Structure formats: C-alpha cells, structure tokens
C-alpha cells in the first residue's frame, strides 16, 4: 500500500469521487499523516479541476449567507450590515474615482484630502462600524486601526443640523457613563487618536453612538441631546 503508484491510484480515484464511503473516510484520515498521499491528492485536484467548468453555476437560496453567519458565531454580524459596508466602500471608491476625474481643482483637493484621511494603510487589521438610524440611512463610517487605535470618522449621509453639532460617544458597560470621543464633522473625514486610551477588548465590544448636541458639543460632558445614530465594530483588513 505504500508503493508510489498505489498512492497515486488511490489519490486519483479519491479525487474522481468513485470510492465508497469507507474508502473515502480511510483516505481522508490517511492524508492527514501521509504528506505524499496529500500531495498526490492536491495534484489530482489541480489536474481534474477544469472539469468543474462543465457544471452550471446555480445561485443558492438568498438566506444562505445569513445561515452560514449564524453557524460561524451566535453573535454574528447580520449580513445586511456587511452588505451596507460593502456598498459604502463601493460608493467611496466611486467618489475617489470621481475626485480624480473632477476638473475643478478645488473640488478634487477636498475629495482627495477626505479620502486620503479615510484610507488606512493596506493589510492592516481594521475595525469598521456603520453608524446609522436604520440600515437604509447610514450616516457615518467609523474605522479603527487595531494596532494604534487611531480612529477615522467618515461622514456618509449625515445631514447638517443648523445650530447643532454631532458628538460621538463610546458606550460600554465597564466604562460606566458614555465617554465622549469628540464632536464630529458631517462634511469631512477626520482622524483622531482618541481611542488610544481604551483597551481593544472594550472598543471591540462597545457601541458607538452619535448624539445631537448644542453647537460645539455637550456642555456637561454627558450626552444631552437625542442619540441619532449607533453602530458596533466588525473586523476587516482593508
């Protein structure tokens, strides 16, 4: 059974799929401890892979992703929120492209600065939260760099409120009262090291909330106006 040809024959038929249940289980167990068999299986998978082109793609049921997420973890982020973030990213890419194409230098500068601030360095682990009243109306996007905990707040569709300011709060049980992360701007992105003083564990489980305060921010250090948007962070590496 250890002859090279035997191993290759076994691998070939395993990949072809014609072995019975016991044989399949036996091979699956053996490949874990026999690198030669495992390598032969991978080679056969590559060889025969083009045959999958013969199989017609079929869209799975619409709720499949939600079920997968529910399996991955009980507290999974709903796919509607993932979809929102992907959509926002797409729109920001569009803005970025639009900015480069803009003929008015001033406009392109404003966009370029805004987008540059928002863009984290590639391949860094980030956390992103969409702050919204409901999934249809995202207002701000918060990105937190896990390494230095620098936070970027990007306005998406927050409407300016005359005579009022939006203030961002960090809410988590162990913090007690909501902690102010400062007044945020509904017109342009801002990057701040405000979160550096908080532990990552707290940030990850916290809720970000935006309240509507008198111009310049809450006079008391606690939210005084209505909470208009909230969101929690989910991981991403871009």
């Amino acid at each position, binding site marked *: 059974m250890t002859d090279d040809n035997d191993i290759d*024959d076994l691998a070939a038929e395993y*990949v072809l799929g*014609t072995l019975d249940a016991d044989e399949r289980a036996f091979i699956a167990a053996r490949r874990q401890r026999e690198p030669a068999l495992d390598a032969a299986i991978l080679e056969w998978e590559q060889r025969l892979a083009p*045959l999958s082109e013969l199989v*017609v793609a079929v*869209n799975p049921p619409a709720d*499949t992703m939600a079920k997968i997420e529910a399996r991955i973890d009980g507290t999974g982020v709903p796919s509607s929120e993932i979809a929102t973030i992907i959509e926002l990213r797409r729109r920001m890419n569009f803005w970025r492209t639009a900015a480069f194409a803009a003929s008015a230098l001033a406009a392109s500068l404003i966009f370029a600065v805004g987008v540059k601030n928002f863009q984290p360095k590639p391949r860094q682990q980030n956390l992103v939260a969409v702050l919204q009243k409901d999934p249809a109306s995202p207002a701000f996007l918060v990105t937190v760099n896990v390494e230095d905990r620098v936070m970027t707040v990007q306005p998406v569709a927050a409407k300016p409120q005359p005579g009022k300011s939006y203030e961002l709060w960090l809410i988590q049980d162990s913090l007690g009262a909501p902690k102010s992360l400062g007044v945020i701007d509904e017109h342009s992105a801002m990057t701040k090291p405000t979160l550096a003083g908080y532990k990552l564990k707290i940030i990850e489980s916290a809720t970000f909330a935006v309240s509507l305060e008198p111009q310049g921010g809450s006079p008391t250090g606690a939210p005084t106006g209505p909470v208009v948007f909230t969101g929690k962070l989910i991981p991403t590496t871009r």
Partner: protein
Amino acid sequence: MASAEDISALLKRIAQKDRLAFAEVYRATSAKLYGIILRILRRRDIADEVLQEVYVKVWERAGDFKPERASPISWMAAIARNRALDEARRKRPVSIEDHPEVQDIASDDATGLANILRGEDRKRLADCLAQLDANRRQMIVLAYCEGLSRDELAKKYSQPVNTIKTWLRRSLTQLKGCLGP
C-alpha cells in the same frame, strides 16, 4: 469577476477573520460551489445544508490555503466536492433513471468538451480527454461532475464493478501521462 489573485488575497484576509472578505468570497464563488454540490447531490434541501457547511469550513480553514499548491477556486471546489461526495456515499445510491436531467451534460461529446473547456489548462485536459474512448471519457465526466459511484457506473454501463474499477484506473493513468508534469 474576481480573479484567482483576488480570491487568494481575500482568503488571506479571511484567515484573519475578516467578515467583509468572507462576504466577498461568498459572492464571487457561491453559485459555482452550489452548482457543483447540487449536481452531485441532486437534492436542493441536502445541497443547501452542504453549501453552508462548506463555507463554514472555508471560514475556519482559510489559513490552510497555500496559493503555491493550488488555485483558490480549485481549493474551494475540492472542499465542496469532498463534502458533497461524502454525503452522496452515505445515502442509498440514487438511480440515474430517476434523474433524467443528469444525462443532459455534454459528457460524451469530445467537441462539446473542447468548446466548454477553454483556457490553457482546460484545453490541455480537453485534448487528453478526447484521446480516451468515448465510454471512458463519459465515465470520467459522470464520476467527477455527477458524483456517480463505481456501483452506479457498473449499472449504467452493464459491467461488473471490477471492470469499471479497472477502466477508471486506466483512464486516469492515461490522462496523467497525457497531461504530463
């Protein structure tokens, strides 16, 4: 459509538990994997369940993916096929006559194969398949795409199981020789 490089990069991010990357990979690959699974299992209820398990596995094992050893799509397709085949072998064999739609694939027609299998790797495989006898070529395609077992092939071709086994081994050996290193 996402390229192999795109999917590889996304798998790397999934290994770091990036949910956005996972959602993007799902979007780019789920119809393909579902097609593969459904073709083998021929029952939507079981195929739905298997598809979920496959993506949970992709989520958990993305870190095991080695781009130098496999293309990301064939890595994922292998997970899907293995899971679907394990499931198919557990059940009583499904008679092929119960599923006439199974036979509509362009399996025995070498020209049909060549039309579908474009691109360098695919063309090479199509050329090598074309060198097999029609019956044996069809057998390979039915086994790979439809998940037919040796017993099912034996019934379909009215041959003893051992003969089928011999034919399959010879066909695979011939394919390997034709495809080269």
